[in-house]
């Protein structure tokens, strides 16, 4: 079999020296470049498949880059307060449920809840991270699974819900920045991560709650 490897990190591709490698400077998680842009995706595939005519191993560069400056954040409205007795993050998550269900119906569920917790369990899972952020040891906080996996399902719940609210596909990382920096639940997860770090919890248990750039120090 002949292989063509796409690669998002050029230096790693050079290092591994695949038989045929196409280095694509696209955001991590988008190896074909642009979601919902069939024309662009075909350009990437055409370049990749053209490399099958090579007679010796080599790496080529796709000529277009998709840069991320690290600042673009999705602009997505959040639900107003509904239940004054609920924590703002829990109230917020409940308020997004209709949008989440609408997004699942339109796009299917690829990154939303379902790996560690169901969509029904998202509010109670957020409550467990609230407890951690308020000082409860993580083992006593009733996290319904491995903390990183539960946090990923919560992030996926929010980013999937956002697809049904905004009228475009978010730029790379813009959805994550919105979840992490603009939502009540994002603030809770960050605070829980900091609390676990400060409590000298094993590093891998808190490091993967959010992407690696999320810690303040």
């Amino acid at each position, binding site marked *: *079999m002949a292989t063509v490897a796409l690669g998002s990190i050029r230096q790693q591709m050079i*290092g591994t020296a695949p038989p045929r490698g196409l280095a694509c400077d696209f955001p991590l*998680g988008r*190896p074909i470049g642009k979601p919902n842009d069939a024309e662009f995706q*075909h350009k990437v595939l055409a370049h990749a498949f053209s490399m099958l005519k090579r007679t010796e191993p080599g790496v080529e560069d796709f000529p277009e880059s998709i840069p991320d400056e690290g600042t673009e954040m999705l602009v997505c409205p959040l639900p107003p307060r509904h239940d004054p007795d609920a924590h703002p993050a829990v109230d917020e998550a409940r308020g997004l449920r209709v949008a989440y269900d609408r997004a699942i119906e339109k796009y299917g569920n690829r990154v939303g809840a379902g790996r560690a917790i169901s969509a029904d369990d998202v509010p109670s899972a957020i409550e467990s991270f609230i407890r951690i952020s308020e000082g409860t040891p993580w083992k006593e906080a009733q996290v319904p699974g491995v903390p990183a996996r539960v946090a990923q399902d919560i992030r996926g719940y929010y980013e999937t819900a956002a697809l049904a609210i905004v009228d475009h596909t978010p730029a790379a990382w813009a959805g994550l920045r919105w979840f992490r920096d603009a939502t009540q639940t994002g603030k809770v997860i960050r605070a829980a991560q900091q609390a676990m770090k400060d409590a000298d919890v094993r590093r891998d248990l808190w490091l993967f709650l959010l992407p690696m*750039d999320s810690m303040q120090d």
Partner: protein
Amino acid sequence: MADQDIKRAVQDIECPVFEQPAFTTPPPLEEATVAIVTSASLHHPDQDDFAPKDTTYRVLDASRRDYLVGHWSPNFDTAGVAADLNVVFPLDRLDELAAQGRIGKVADQHLAFAGNQFDLAQIRMDGGPAGAAFLKEQGVDVVLLTPV
């Protein structure tokens, strides 16, 4: 921190060096059966999720479009694949190329591995060769590898 910063943070991780890459000349693309192997940890909802250090693969049915991303790393954009499976796993694009006669056939089954690997020996000696043998048995001529 931007996408480029995350790439810079990991780009110097030491890579295994293969002195003799398995360079193969395929049949003409118009006659070739094409499969995708992705490291996006994709799996169907009725299949086992990926474990944190999983070196096995899942067989993906090309006639289905229900895929979950089972990746354990949070260090990639997830909104793109949430909105369009093809940005990771371009099955619809391959179907279009086959309909146009530009590729011979889209394989009936594709493979997904987990991109977050810790011990490369197992995947090099076990999961990887097993996946390659599986695709070879399906008559696959060309494999497109898509990383996540």
